[in-house]
């Protein structure tokens, strides 16, 4: 749990403080300085419109990491509610919910997100919608699976016999047992959301220019690949580092939980 807390704190801090560390305005166009190589004034160089790449990267964290955080959180909430409805709502609800989940799983997530975001029109809200709609199914499956296994537990049966409402049982008897596993799923989905946002940005269906989202920056950088290849390195590196860090924290958390399970 500690590794995830540290990582979460680091990302939060970076998203919060990063933009204030930026030496330049990330959207300020400065044609005379366009495509300058890394130097003293522009530590990582400038892009085709003379914008400082370092500043864009730092501000971009808000878009790439911040949006991914938001999207994965929305998915977590939707998915958990849906999964609990399946687990607690009886056979028919379970069947309906699980077939709905299967239906949403019948498309590769990013392809579905591309179609949804593309048809609804490029823009940040549509991007959030597209990635949330395609990102709740794993949470739902995990929540349902654990929920079903809890049904035969003594304290759940007693709570039901005591006449407590399903909402109360879901909140106080199910949710605490679900949280550790859901957190592991969440780290994976957070990483996937970062990849999704940058992929959609790169394809032109995500965050729109001049906003400095990392994928969108790579779309710009690609055009000038031959003359200034260095431009392409940094945004990609930022994506890889974030995803890698989150995945490693997720792995550590999963192992820690597995150990705990073995001891008890």
């Amino acid at each position, binding site marked *: 749990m500690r590794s995830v807390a540290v990582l979460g704190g680091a990302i939060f801090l970076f998203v919060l403080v990063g933009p204030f560390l930026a030496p330049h305005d990330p959207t300020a166009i400065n044609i005379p300085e366009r495509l300058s190589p890394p130097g003293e004034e522009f530590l990582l160089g400038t892009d085709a419109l003379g914008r400082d790449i370092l500043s864009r990267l730092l501000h971009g964290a808000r878009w790439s990491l911040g949006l991914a955080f938001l999207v994965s959180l929305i998915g977590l909430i939707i998915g958990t509610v849906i999964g609990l409805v399946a687990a607690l709502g009886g056979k028919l609800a379970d069947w309906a919910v699980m*077939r709905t989940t299967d239906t949403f799983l019948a498309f590769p997530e990013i392809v579905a997100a591309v179609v949804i975001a*593309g048809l609804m029109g490029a823009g940040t809200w549509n991007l959030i919608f597209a990635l949330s709609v395609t990102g709740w199914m794993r949470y739902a499956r995990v929540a349902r699976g654990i929920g079903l296994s809890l049904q035969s537990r003594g304290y759940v049966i007693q709570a039901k016999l005591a006449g407590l409402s399903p909402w109360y049982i879901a909140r106080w008897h199910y949710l605490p047992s679900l949280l550790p596993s859901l957190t592991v799923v969440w780290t994976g989905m957070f990483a996937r959301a970062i990849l999704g946002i940058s992929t959609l940005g*790169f394809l032109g269906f995500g965050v729109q220019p001049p906003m400095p989202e990392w994928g969108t920056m790579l779309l710009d950088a690609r055009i000038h*690949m031959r003359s200034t290849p260095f431009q*392409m390195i940094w945004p990609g590196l930022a994506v890889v580092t974030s995803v890698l860090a989150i995945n490693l924290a997720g792995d550590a958390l999963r192992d820690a939980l597995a150990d705990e399970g073995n001891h008890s």
Partner: protein
Amino acid sequence: MIATLLSLLLRAVVVLAGTAVLTFALLWNAPGDPAQAIAMARFDALLTEDVIDQVREEVGLNANFWGAFVDWVGPLLVLDFGNSAVTGRPVWPDLWVSITYTFPLALAGLAIGLVISLPLAILATQHPGRLLDRFAVAIASLGTAIPAFWLGLLLILLFAVQLDWLPAMGARTPAHAILPALTLGLGVAASLTRIIRSGILEARGQQFLPALSRRGVSPKAIGRDHVAPHAAVPVVTVVGLELAFLLEGLVVVEVIFGRPGLGTFLTSAILDRDFPHVQAVVVLTALVFVSVNLIVDVIYRQIDPRIGERDA
């Protein structure tokens, strides 16, 4: 067995029906006036309301939701994808051409992925925790964190721009397929290595293995008859996920390398708001995806009969 098959089949049909409703709801609710977008893409000129209305009538955008849905889904049941809203030509021939570009690329990517990951995972698990194993894990973690589009750009930068060994854009010669296939293959290899490795390690940990070796069964026979089937369960499970990964990678890779194929077909259809083209790709994807997962479910039950019992 037949009952299980039937229930799996029924489940697949329900899911496909659900995807049809979802797809249609999405097309139906897409903002903007599709008729106007289609008319603009088709005539590319100043438009009068008359022309737009004519297009609306022609493309069948006039009915209510369920009426339009029935009109829409009928032809799809016999895999008739209709005509392009932009060019007016039948969808299927153009779609088929895209498939002929995409399918070999997908196979090549999968092959590269297997050729790298299978030996790497097997060698790495010979001595878990040693250098090679750590190397394999590190590479695999890195590989799953790299977005396909960035990997593709880096490969272009290295092999096409700096070294000038391979062509980057288009699909004219087989050499044009090398970089795209490599981009796909490396991504597949990364995720497969992780999965096969943990599959083998888990199978190795089974308690009956020491018993077998004490009974004098040779290590080779244990590996082939006992470890491999156990390791196969998680690998088969992720075939569906791998397919998703492959399809996602294909969209990106085709766009980066300027290859005609399903991915380019889909993205340009979205930009042109060519709904018949979009829905054809979406329906086809869902069909392939659901069928593969159905087959995986069946195979899965063959390898590990306990799964069926657990479900019931």
